[in-house]
């Protein structure tokens, strides 16, 4: 990993989020450096999706600083962002190619350019024959592949993926990890939420482990392992504990 001190692409400081009277995120701070792949871990309901939504301006944070490139996110930056939300969904009544072209154009590609790119991508993920099929006529996994295509259109320099492998079979999961790895090689910074330790091991440079809206562990994979090893506390279940999994 490149150790030069560069301005982090994502900076979250003292982030706090309340829904009504419940505090979901207490006081969260972390940075993501340009070019790294950052794993966002934590059990269900720990606040990962909430943090991402607040970072992207979908939720208004109760307090704290959430910056991308040194300022709050605005959709104008969206052309260089690839976001795969936890709640998947595209315009279901339109054809695959129409939806992909639409998003391509919104992200600043020309009409022909985005059509060509989409067809190449569909060919790669074995959906070439579905280009003019309506999205609601595709299987769940096929729809997800289309959505991933929309996410990585126009060479984003920041990829935010909320459980990207959710709902994929093992073959497609491998295909997806290949695609993420390619994006990473092409220079993209990646923030990904995952519950799969093999994905963390294969892709992530650094991770943060969230528990009940607080940071439990933060750093490189080996640092996090040391934190857990030193404190001999933390992860309740084997599945959630990086140490158990990584030393498996």
């Amino acid at each position, binding site marked *: 990993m490149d150790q030069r001190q560069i301005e982090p692409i994502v900076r979250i400081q003292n982030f706090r989020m309340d829904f*009504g009277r419940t505090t979901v995120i207490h006081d969260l701070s972390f940075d993501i450096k340009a070019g790294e792949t950052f794993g966002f871990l934590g059990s269900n309901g720990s606040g990962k999706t909430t943090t991402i*939504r607040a970072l*992207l*301006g*979908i*939720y*208004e*944070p*109760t*307090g704290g600083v959430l910056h991308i490139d040194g300022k709050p*996110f*605005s*959709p*104008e930056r*969206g*052309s260089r*962002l690839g*976001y795969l*939300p936890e*709640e*998947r*969904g*595209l*315009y*279901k*009544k*339109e054809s695959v190619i*129409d939806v992909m072209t*639409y*998003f391509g*154009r*919104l*992200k*600043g590609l020309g009409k022909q350019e985005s059509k060509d790119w989409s067809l190449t991508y569909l060919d790669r993920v074995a959906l070439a024959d579905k280009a003019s099929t309506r999205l609601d006529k595709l299987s769940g996994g096929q729809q997800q592949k289309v*959505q991933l295509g*929309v996410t990585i259109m126009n060479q984003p320099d920041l990829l935010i993926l909320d459980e990207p492998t959710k709902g994929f079979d093992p073959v497609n999961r491998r295909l997806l990890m290949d695609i993420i790895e390619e994006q990473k090689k092409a220079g993209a910074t990646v923030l990904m939420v995952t519950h799969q330790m093999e994905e963390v091991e294969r892709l992530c440079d650094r991770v943060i482990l969230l528990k009940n809206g607080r940071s439990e562990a933060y750093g490189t994979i080996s640092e996090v392992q040391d934190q857990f090893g030193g404190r001999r506390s933390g992860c309740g279940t084997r599945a959630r504990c990086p140490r158990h999994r990584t030393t498996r």
Partner: protein
Amino acid sequence: MARYNLGTVVSFEVTRTLTKRRFWIATLIVPVIIGIVVALIVGANSSTDNSVSSQKNQKFSFTYSDASGVVDPSIVKAVGGSKASSPSAAIAAVKSGKLDAYFDYPADPAKQATKVYGVDKGIFDNGKYSSVASSILTASAEAKVHDAKLTTLVKGDLPVDATTYDSSGAVSGGIGSVIPPLLFLAIFYVVILLLGNQMLTSTLEEKENRVTEMILTTLNPTTLIIGKVVSLFIVGIVQMLVFALPVVVGYLFFRTSLNLPALDLADLQLDPWQMITGALLLIGGFTLFTGTLVAVGAIMPTAKEAGQIFGVMMALIFVPFYGVTLIVSDPHALIVQVFTWFPYSAPVTAMLRNGFSSLSPGEAIGVIVEQFVLGVVVLRLAVRLFRFGSIEYSKKVSLSAVLPSRKAARAAR
């Protein structure tokens, strides 16, 4: 970038609406129904045509008796009738079907009714008995007058040029000056009725399909919503053109058989002030209603729940019509003032009053400003509700949840 995206949104939204079969089925149903009605009326009218000569090719047997002495036997003969021997025998013949019809002209046909007895030929054809009976009478009267000028007068086809003066002594326009500004009112109703529901549900698709997060991170929500409103307007224009087509065709080619009055465009008086006021009221009202419908749609999680609200909104635009006589006759009544200024009844009331020239310039400007200002405020609220509300996929967004967070955000800044 933003304007470029607006074009992209508009073209995507318009294309996908206009390429749906469902849209065309819904749109074409109206002109098809209008077409069927026109065909029925044309069919009916061709058999009840007023001229005696056109009845010749569908002659029927009839006899008559004439107590007035007006009826000219030669005219009756030309149409194929003859004098009845006795009224009771003629009626009996009609009842038994031996004779098609019997006309009994009274002593004073101008005051007393001419009695017509006929064999039932179905509702469309029965009308011909009466029209032949009265045509014979008119033709006979004309023949007795023997004077071109008097004949025209007898026919009653008189050109009349009326001038009325309003209270200030200026020439008031009559119906010809009321129609043009009221056209804006008609357009307002058509637009709201046609597009209202679509406005309400315009952002629901993003919600129901869970596209909101993708959209919000790629596109400014203002661009999305304005793009949607613009494309709805374009779609609405397409629909209106499709609807207008059979009306225009019907008017141009079947005007006489539809008994439509001749619309002499020269009779229409265009008062520039009234027309500008009407246009601005239309656009202002459209802005306010659109903004409100989009805002309501942003709060509602599904189309079904949004539909209930839609009913209430539609009732609101019809409420001023309950007071229409008052609006026309006494524009200063309290209730009319309330309707004029209450934002959601204002467009309809003000457009009505504008048509009948009872909207003062001050009121006009006031209502227009009110509509635009409120329209923009509500549209901005709609954008905000969509932005922070549409992630609530399953439950209604509460206004309080959206608004205090704004305070919090301001405090954080």
